[in-house]
């Protein structure tokens, strides 16, 4: 095997194995930063040895064994192999003699991964730090990949990660799954981070790409992992359902020259039925767990209404409007209210929708939000009030941060003025 081949293999292997490795090592050395370093060292060893020896039959176990040995060497060298570290060393060596122990460790690995997820999304960290750390430690992304995805410089991401690790160390955040009293809040932080990553990929807030699919894939994959780790939490399945169903439309929501295509105008033949099916199953699981009224479950249920409709005309808008009513109760936000207005407009006529939108025009948090004038313009257009509609689309174009959205809004404005 050539060095180059080994390189490619190890890149891919890092994505698969590094989260488990870092998670397992974090439990032993009680330091996420050190655990990551040890994991990296193990990969460097592989890069040196595998071109000669070939890929071992169980690469994950090989890497873990090397990393553990490194940890012990390091403690010895630094003379810190005190009582506590001797314990750790004993634990490390316990499973160090080959493959059979790996199977016995599978459950532990799940627990360790869960602990790592909770740590990466810990509330002592800023949201940006949580996102960066999650992608780095659990998604296996490099600093440069994270930087590209979020359109910031590599050094910004690197700093964020360094600072985040320091914050965790200084706050002495234990490597534990949170106890029952704080579990719900902590899990909600994890879900928030995953959904933020997904949305960053799904609807890029800046730049000229509407879709940065790799981030969607990462978030979806982490969501699926989390759903296996906490199988009894309805909102986890609900978030996965939401992401699967939204991702199912990714081929349909961008036109040939990269322009966004609105949901109702999409070619539904391009929707990914496999992801839809997975999404509907995950939603059903969330509902069976009694979580039908959770914020992610309601959003997933709305997405499911669209997914089930074979044509845009078959969409059950009455049900969607009702789901938005419920969502506005649990997630009272002006954006939800705006979406509710759209649904009401579809279910009960543009005038009814416009009434709800008009109530939102003075909402300060929607002041710079291009979808407010965009929705208002759409409803006005349906009511044949073309002059007002055109003005709203112009306003939306001025507020849009995405080049593609801006173009779309300008086109709609132009269409209204021609009427």
């Amino acid at each position, binding site marked *: 095997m050539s060095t180059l081949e080994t390189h490619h293999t190890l890149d891919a292997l890092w*994505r*698969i194995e590094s989260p488990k490795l870092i998670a397992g090592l974090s439990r032993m050395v009680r330091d996420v930063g050190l655990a990551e370093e040890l994991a990296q060292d193990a990969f460097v060893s592989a890069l040196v040895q595998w071109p000669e020896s070939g890929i071992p039959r169980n690469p994950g176990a090989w890497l873990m064994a090397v990393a553990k040995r490194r940890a012990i060497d390091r403690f010895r060298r630094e003379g810190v192999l005190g009582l506590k570290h001797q314990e750790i060393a004993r634990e490390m060596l316990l499973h160090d003699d080959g493959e059979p122990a790996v199977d016995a460790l599978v459950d532990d690995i799940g627990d360790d991964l869960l602990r790592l997820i909770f740590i990466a999304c810990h509330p002592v960290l800023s949201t940006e730090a949580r996102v960066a750390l999650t992608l780095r430690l659990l998604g296996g992304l490099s600093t440069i990949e994270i930087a590209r995805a979020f359109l910031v410089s590599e050094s910004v991401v690197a700093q964020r990660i360094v600072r985040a690790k320091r914050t965790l160390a200084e706050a002495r955040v234990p490597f534990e799954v949170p106890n029952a009293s704080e579990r719900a809040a902590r899990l909600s932080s994890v879900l928030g981070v995953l959904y933020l990553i997904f949305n960053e990929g799904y609807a890029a807030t800046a730049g000229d790409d509407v879709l940065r699919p790799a981030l969607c*894939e990462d978030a979806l*994959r982490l969501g*699926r992992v989390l759903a296996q780790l906490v199988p009894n939490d309805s909102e986890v399945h609900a978030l996965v359902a939401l992401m699967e169903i939204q991702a199912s439309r990714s081929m349909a929501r961008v036109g040939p020259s990269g322009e966004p295509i609105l949901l109702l105008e999409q070619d539904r033949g391009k929707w990914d039925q496999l*992801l839809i099916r997975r999404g509907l199953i995950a939603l059903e699981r969330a509902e069976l767990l009694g979580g039908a009224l959770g914020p992610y479950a309601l959003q997933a249920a709305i997405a499911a209404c669209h997914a089930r409709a074979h044509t845009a005309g078959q969409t059950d808008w009455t049900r969607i409007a009702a789901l938005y009513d419920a969502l506005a109760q649990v997630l009272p936000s002006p954006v939800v209210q705006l979406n509710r207005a759209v649904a009401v407009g579809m279910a009960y006529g543009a005038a009814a929708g416009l009434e709800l939108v008009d109530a939102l025009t003075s909402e300060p948090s929607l002041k710079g939000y291009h979808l407010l004038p965009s929705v208002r313009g759409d409803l006005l257009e349906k009511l044949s009030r073309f002059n007002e509609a055109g003005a709203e689309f112009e306003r939306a174009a001025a507020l849009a941060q995405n080049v593609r959205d801006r173009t779309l809004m300008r086109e709609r404005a132009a269409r209204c003025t021609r009427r």
Partner: protein
Amino acid sequence: MRFVSIYKLSPDRFAAPASEAEMTAMGRLIGEMQAAGVLIDTGGTAPTDVSLRVRRAGSQTTVTDGPFTESKEVIGGYAVLDVQSKDEAILWTRRFLDCAGDGVVELMEVTSGP
């Protein structure tokens, strides 16, 4: 990126029942791949004689009933993988073949998914 993986093996191996150890190992791998969010669909060929070939040539469609005893390889099953790279698909396929034994896996990237 998404890959479809088709596993082909000799008719003899296909006809021979898998041992309990093999089944366990395969079950564990499938569980691991699902838990990793990679395996999004999979299925094994049913051990029945129901197999068909539907061929189109010009305007003529012909349906031939199997089994196709002349085949050197039969399709044992398929999987749909969501992975981050071609190399990752290869790594999982290695693991699959560790469990499945001799045979060939054809990996094809398909345009779908997120």
